[in-house]
């Protein structure tokens, strides 16, 4: 039994298809759903956490169906939404105790101490949250989520708005939880973080999975080197053996090649011949950004849907 299983999971907001026949299974790993704003990440998480009813398809968490066994699903998961919601007039301990009581955790006081200790908040536990930094507030939310020892943890953009050090710390905590056997489902639009810290990533675009695998596997689908060129003027795809086009982002075009050093001059010549001016070229190893560019191309935020329906959707689901 996989911790998270979805089959043809679909959600429409009026005419806008936010998630389109998503089939996925996640088990005992850190899984990142990667994608730009508006690609359907949050909608997927809302359906998996029983906060939104799927239009079509099915999903289960720890073997419990999200539509029919909502309460069992909610018992086995914890969800930390994107917007940091902690009561600033309460202390750290009170905030965590509140969740422990709602979950009905036995020996609540001890569990609260433990969760605070895991998140390294013990020495500040009795201070009001208004004195906490952004990173501490995020860790406090994790402590709230951990207090009932869930099997599956959903984190929606866990590092958004945090500085580099705080981000790293959050990810170290997430890795530690994973080692204890928890399944962690993260959404993010930071490719570098997914690359560095996640076991497996799914790139989602327009509600569909465009690429799925470990970061290493995905990068290996490209050749060994990536060449990025800044070009001006007419751009035509150069036809050179051993050079594959990855994608274009404004005036930057990317290619992937087996041997970058040798391909550089060939590519420069070919681009010049096709009629454009090459301003600069760089050679580097592939990153998830390149995988993303190849998988989905340049992404735009969804548009062309009816505003009234969007309003109704917002009303239903904040």
């Amino acid at each position, binding site marked *: 039994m996989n911790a998270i299983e979805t089959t043809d999971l679909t959600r429409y907001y009026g005419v806008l298809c936010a998630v389109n026949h998503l089939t996925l299974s996640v088990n005992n790993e850190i899984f990142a759903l990667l994608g730009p704003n508006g690609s359907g990440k949050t909608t997927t998480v809302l359906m998996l956490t029983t*906060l939104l009813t799927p239009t079509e398809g099915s999903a289960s968490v720890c073997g419990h169906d999200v539509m029919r066994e909502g309460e069992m699903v909610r018992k086995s998961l914890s*969800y*930390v939404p994107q917007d940091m919601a902690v009561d600033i007039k309460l202390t750290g301990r009170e905030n965590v105790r509140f969740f422990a009581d*709602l979950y009905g955790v036995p020996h609540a006081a001890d569990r609260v101490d433990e969760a605070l200790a895991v998140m390294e908040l013990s020495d500040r536990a009795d201070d009001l949250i208004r004195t906490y930094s952004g990173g501490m507030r995020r860790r406090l939310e994790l402590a709230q989520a951990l207090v009932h020892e869930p099997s599956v943890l959903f984190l929606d953009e866990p590092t958004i708005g945090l500085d580099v050090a705080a981000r790293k710390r959050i990810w170290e905590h997430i890795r530690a939880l994973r080692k204890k056997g928890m399944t962690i489902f993260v959404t993010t639009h930071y490719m570098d973080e997914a690359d560095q810290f996640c076991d497996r990533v799914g790139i989602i675009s327009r509600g569909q999975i465009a690429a799925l695998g470990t970061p290493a596997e995905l990068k290996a689908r490209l050749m060994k080197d990536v060449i990025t060129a800044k070009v001006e003027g007419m751009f035509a795809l150069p036809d050179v053996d051993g050079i594959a086009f990855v994608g274009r982002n404004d005036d930057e075009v990317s290619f992937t090649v087996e041997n970058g050093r040798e391909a550089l001059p060939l590519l420069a010549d070919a681009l010049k011949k096709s009629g454009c001016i090459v301003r600069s070229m760089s050679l580097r190893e592939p990153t998830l950004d390149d995988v993303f560019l190849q998988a989905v191309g340049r992404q735009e935020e969804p548009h062309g849907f009816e505003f009234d329906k969007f309003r109704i959707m917002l009303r239903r689901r904040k």
Partner: protein
Amino acid sequence: MSGIVTYMKRDFLKWGRGKVAVISALVMPAAWLIFVGLALPVQFTGNYLDFITPGILVMTMLSAGLSGGALLMFDKILGFLNKFLALPTPRSSILVSKILFITGRGLIQTTIILVIALLIGATLLSPLQYGLTYFILFLFGVLISTFATTIALYLEDHDSYAAFNTMISMPLFFTSSALMPYSVMPAWLATIAHFNPLSYAIDAVRDVTVGGFPAVPIIVLLVLTGGLLAICTHVFRKVTV
């Protein structure tokens, strides 16, 4: 059940730590009681303070309820509601606890106003009369906090809700039987006052203070509260599916 208590505990803790809000909510009804109740020269009764006290108690409950309506909306806007909805705790306890908290907070405020009224010369009643008064105030509190919560959930925007709150609180108060009996009102005002739900609560409390048992107003309040609770549950389900 334990969920309701836990949610209420959170709200009471937060409320108790905002000292300005606790005190400022009492200033207006206290001012009405002292500056109008003691000072207004009226002919229809010898003890205007005793007449106006039920009106001020209900008014305290009204403003407590209306200001509390924004609480659930804020929980929604700030993302707390999503966290609560993902908990195994029954979802209805979120709504029930909020209504009970707003009503409970209103009852604490009305108690303070009642003490002030007694200190400045209102007549002391029997325990049974106070019990009945509290029952009516509780019923009215549930009615008004359900109403306010529903409107706020529906409007889903703090500015609109604040405007709505300002728009209805004063007219509701002035068109009720809080300040004068129906007999001295102009006919048009008396007609409006008879339809105002505030009047039912005020008349009921006033009836209790002179030793009666206001069966009809209590039944009307019960029916209104029941109907509003049904509507509120429906709106809450709609925003949380």
